[in-house]
């Protein structure tokens, strides 16, 4: 605006030039606007996500403890030493265990529950069911863990008291290396059950009614409709839940591990994510923690890529 005013006062003949200048100015501002709009976002992800990825890779080649002024270059040592660390091996085993137990529990169990709720979707109790089933999803993992800590308490917890009613022996849920991981698995299953179920229910509701009507006119039974029409059409949701569960399950249990067991007893409830946290912030082995970070990132990227490739090829989109 300021650019145009002197020209405008100069008279009629200069007006085309003024308009042209105003136009250039306008174009300049308009041309920059998109970058101004996305600028803050790009700066933030650059500084707090992309730069840390690069810096982690750098740190993974050094030996450092947060405090020493200089870092020692150690090449690939942080990576090659990992297989020799029994704690890392236990963390790998834990990661695998969480994955093979929690993926079925968080993917198939909610699916079963959704199929169970489907025939009674129009019942008046449905809203209350959904609220009760979904509630665990929206609270903090750490607070959920505190609630369960009280239930699992060996001497006074309600779970052991209930077991005692049936004549069972007291179980030291969180301090026995055979049961501690199951306690965390129970909490994690409890936490996602309702959310995944709602995703499935919504997908079932999204199946076009004509398909179902056409099939039932042809005499298909409810079970046949479920198997041949509804289920194939909700496979995208099924794979979405599968992918996100495989990728995030070991990340998600962090809060529960931290509050309930701190990775113990004897590293029986730890996983790679928790190992990274302990290396970095309990033992200050920054190089080792960074090496694990690089590996976790590589594994996550690979998993994401493989699963999306697989989904694109094998899933029927309705």
């Amino acid at each position, binding site marked *: 605006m300021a650019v145009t005013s002197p020209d405008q006062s100069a008279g009629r003949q200069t007006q085309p030039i003024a308009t042209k200048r105003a136009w250039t100015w306008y174009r300049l501002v308009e041309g920059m*606007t*998109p970058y101004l*709009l*996305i600028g*803050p*976002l*790009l700066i*933030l*992800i650059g*500084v*707090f*996500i*992309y730069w840390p990825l690069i*810096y*982690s890779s750098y*740190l993974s080649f050094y030996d450092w403890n947060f405090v020493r002024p200089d870092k020692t270059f150690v090449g690939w040592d942080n990576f090659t030493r990992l297989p020799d660390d029994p704690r890392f091996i236990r963390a790998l085993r834990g990661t695998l265990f969480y994955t093979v137990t929690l993926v079925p529990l968080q993917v198939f169990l909610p699916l079963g529950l959704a199929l169970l*709720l489907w*025939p009674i979707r129009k*019942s008046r109790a449905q809203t209350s*069911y959904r*609220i*009760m*089933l979904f*509630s*665990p999803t*929206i*609270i*903090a993992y*750490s*607070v*959920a863990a*505190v*609630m369960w*800590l*009280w239930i699992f*308490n060996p001497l*006074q917890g*309600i779970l052991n*008291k209930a077991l005692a009613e049936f004549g069972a022996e007291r179980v030291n849920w969180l301090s026995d290396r055979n049961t501690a991981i199951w306690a965390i698995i129970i909490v994690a299953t*409890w936490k996602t*059950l*309702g959310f995944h179920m709602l*995703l499935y229910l*919504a*997908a079932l509701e999204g199946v076009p009614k004509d398909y179902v009507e056409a099939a039932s006119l042809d005499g298909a039974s409810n079970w046949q409709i479920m198997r041949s029409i509804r289920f194939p059409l909700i496979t*995208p949701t099924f794979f979405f839940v599968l992918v996100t569960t495989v*990728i995030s399950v070991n*990340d998600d249990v962090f*809060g529960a591990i*931290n*509050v309930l067991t701190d990775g113990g007893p004897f590293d029986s409830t730890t996983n790679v994510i928790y190992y990274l*946290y302990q290396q*970095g*912030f309990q033992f200050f082995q920054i190089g080792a923690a*960074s090496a694990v*970070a*690089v590996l976790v*990132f590589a594994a*996550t*990227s690979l998993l994401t890529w493989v699963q999306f490739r697989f989904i694109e090829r094998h899933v029927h989109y309705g």
Partner: protein
Amino acid sequence: MASASTMVESHRHRNAARGNRALIHAVVVLICAFTIFPFLWMLSTSFKQAGEVFTQDLRLLPHDPTLQNFPDAFGYFPVAQWFWNSFGIASITTAGKLLISVPAAFAFARLSFKGDKVLFAMVLATMIVPGIVTVVPNYILVSNLNWMNTWAGVIIPSLAGTAFFVFLLRQNVMTLPQDLIDAARIDGASTFKVLTQIVVPNIKPAIAVVVILSFLGMWNQYLWPLLILNDFEAKTLATGMQFFTANAESAQMWGPMMATAAIATLPPLFLYALAQRQIIDTFVTSGLKG
């Protein structure tokens, strides 16, 4: 004749269906009991006096209920301060995330500029980076900036985690009719004006959902504030509760501990009750079909 037998048949069918339904309801109620019990047990304990906390029976309703655990909790630990920290951090981060993600979502949905596709892909790619991977460098950065034990140390790095919201809002902006924007353009509105006067008022429901999800996410955030907030007074509710767990063996502690847990769960449950439909719809439509 035929119709009579059909009627009998359908009657029998209906009875069988009704029996099935009763069975389904029974199973679902059992599962609901499993998901809701920890909440009920927490609430129950939070209203019990120390003498009743350790009773042998399943006593969901305290015989002699008390509110004393709440002031006790505030007395043992700075629970009020933690609540204020949780609330402040969640609110400011949510406002910040909106200020960042709404303009970006608009630009990616409606403007074409050099590098737009690559930049959008870079934004989306941040969604697959697990939080734990960036924790060490960000910790070093925050400590070098002297932001340890401050709200800024929690809030500013968290602002980077907005890719999902950008994606969600962009989906929404794309559904607005082009005519709406063209009309404003013809009237001479600048891009900025289109954003503030046309786009924002028309995507209010999506913005509301972002506010709720972001607030929930930040209220529940654990790992990052656990690392940044070490001072007793600086903790949030989700991270401060560990002080209770360190003293978890005495009867005096369980009541106040569950009272604090109840305080920590109420805002999320309240938000959820307020916007149940929107939260679920958003997750379903944007998260999946996009």
